[in-house]
């Protein structure tokens, strides 16, 4: 297999960690990338006393590097406090995977955005911050409308 991806990206793509839905999550985020039109969902279970993320799951409707970055993000976030998890950057996730092709940088941005959306949802639900308009599938889709464009193909 010789995709322009590192072994670690391929490994996480093939065997994604913490994948799936969560029943009654403490926080849930759905994000879409305006660059490509992909989506990622992140679910959190947070210990209310310690603010530690005890369980985390993700779902992805996206490319291989999106699946891989989402997978690595869940590994990075698990066991961290919410405050610590907020600081996880896309650069950190990318580095952890041994790098991504330049055109794929936004995939890890998307994964980080997904995590942050879930944390924000947790904070909103628990009165830690004030509520914003929820990001729904439709909102994301309308944001993504203009992404489709010509010029590729063999």
């Amino acid at each position, binding site marked *: 297999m010789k995709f322009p991806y590192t072994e670690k990206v391929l490994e996480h*793509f093939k065997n994604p960690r913490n994948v799936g839905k969560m029943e009654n999550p403490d926080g849930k985020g759905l994000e879409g990338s305006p660059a490509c039109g992909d989506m990622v969902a992140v679910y959190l279970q947070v210990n209310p006393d310690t603010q530690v993320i005890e369980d985390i799951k993700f779902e992805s409707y996206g490319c291989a590097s999106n699946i891989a970055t989402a997978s690595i993000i869940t590994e990075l976030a698990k066991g961290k406090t919410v405050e610590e998890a907020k600081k996880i950057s896309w650069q950190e996730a990318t580095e952890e995977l041994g790098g991504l092709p330049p055109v794929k940088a936004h995939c890890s941005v998307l994964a980080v955005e997904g995590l942050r959306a879930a944390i924000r949802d947790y904070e909103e639900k628990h009165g830690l911050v004030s509520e914003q308009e929820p990001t729904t599938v439709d909102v994301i889709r309308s944001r993504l409308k203009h992404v489709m464009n010509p010029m590729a193909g063999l």
Partner: protein
Amino acid sequence: MGTMKRIYMDHSATTPVDPLVVDAMLPFFTDLFGNASSLHSFGSEAAEALLRARKQVADAIGALPEEIIFTSGGTESDNLAIRGVVPFNAGKKHVITSVIEHPAVLNTCAFLESLGHEVTYVPVDADGVVDVKILEKSVRENTVLVSVMHANNEVGTIQPIEKISEIAKKYNIYFHTDAVQSVGKIPVNVDDLGVDMLSISSHKIHGPKGVGVLYVRKGTNISPIVFGGNHEMGMRSGTENVSGIVGFAKAMELAAQRQDADSIHMTQMRDSLISRVFDSISDVRLNGHPSRRLPNNVNMSFKYAEGESMLMLLDMQGVAVSTGSACSSKSLKASHVLSALEIEDDFIHGSLRISLGRENTMDDIDYVVGALQETIAKLRAMSPLADR
């Protein structure tokens, strides 16, 4: 990978060279290596081989040898057809093409626009068929060329070339078709199609890469786009790629000989693949025309599964296909063809093109159907959108 099964089903991208073609080429590397322009016997051997090749190609499409211009591939042929005709027919500045042409045509047209020429891009219907009525309405006083492909490389839709040719004749406009994908799969005869120019690429028909042809009907007012020693009757300079041309001509001969049998074989595999996928996988759609499509083209979209991810999981199972969806590691844009077909959002992200070749078998189809089921199940299991 070790001994993993490897099944190549991306024949619209390129094809393995037929061993008979390799055999035909080999003598021209080390023994019959002369320059066809040289006067000595090494040169005449090469020149004779070129002559034979020109005749082979001409015969395969019902043309005359002197109507065959060898080029470096389909892309150059398309460039030559368009840029060799348009700027050199004084005052006629307007070109008609379609929105689903290959980039070799679209980007050449875009270049012409940058020089001040005008281009109309005719739309297609939901199945990818060019709208002939709009095409006819687009004709202007100063229209010099219509360029519409014979069959589309992504969704396999076969265009109504004969009808377009009638329109071109009626208004006295040159008509070029890009037949890169159709040769070897459906009949390609320049008189039956009624075209003035026709592009073919060797590597799509089990010939070597880097060779192609532009058929140019006698009497067409065309000028070269590469300048030099005036090879190819002055229409394409550069020492002729003798081994490549000989291999290409052999591939054309084989394509013509085998087209009937290949077409039946591919149609069977195609239809079996489509019906088995539709029977066993939900939320799938076929892109392109249900019947007016190339015998070797299957283009399907799956809800809740993204193109690159599908492609990679299939590759890990040894199956090579392509996607027109966004999120490839080379480009983030969805294919202009799929976009033109106005496929619903849910489907546009999950397209796969499976293009069959003469060496594929029904066993391969079995394997690929299984691999697809596994792939789609796995991806849907992790999608936030799939209803489970």
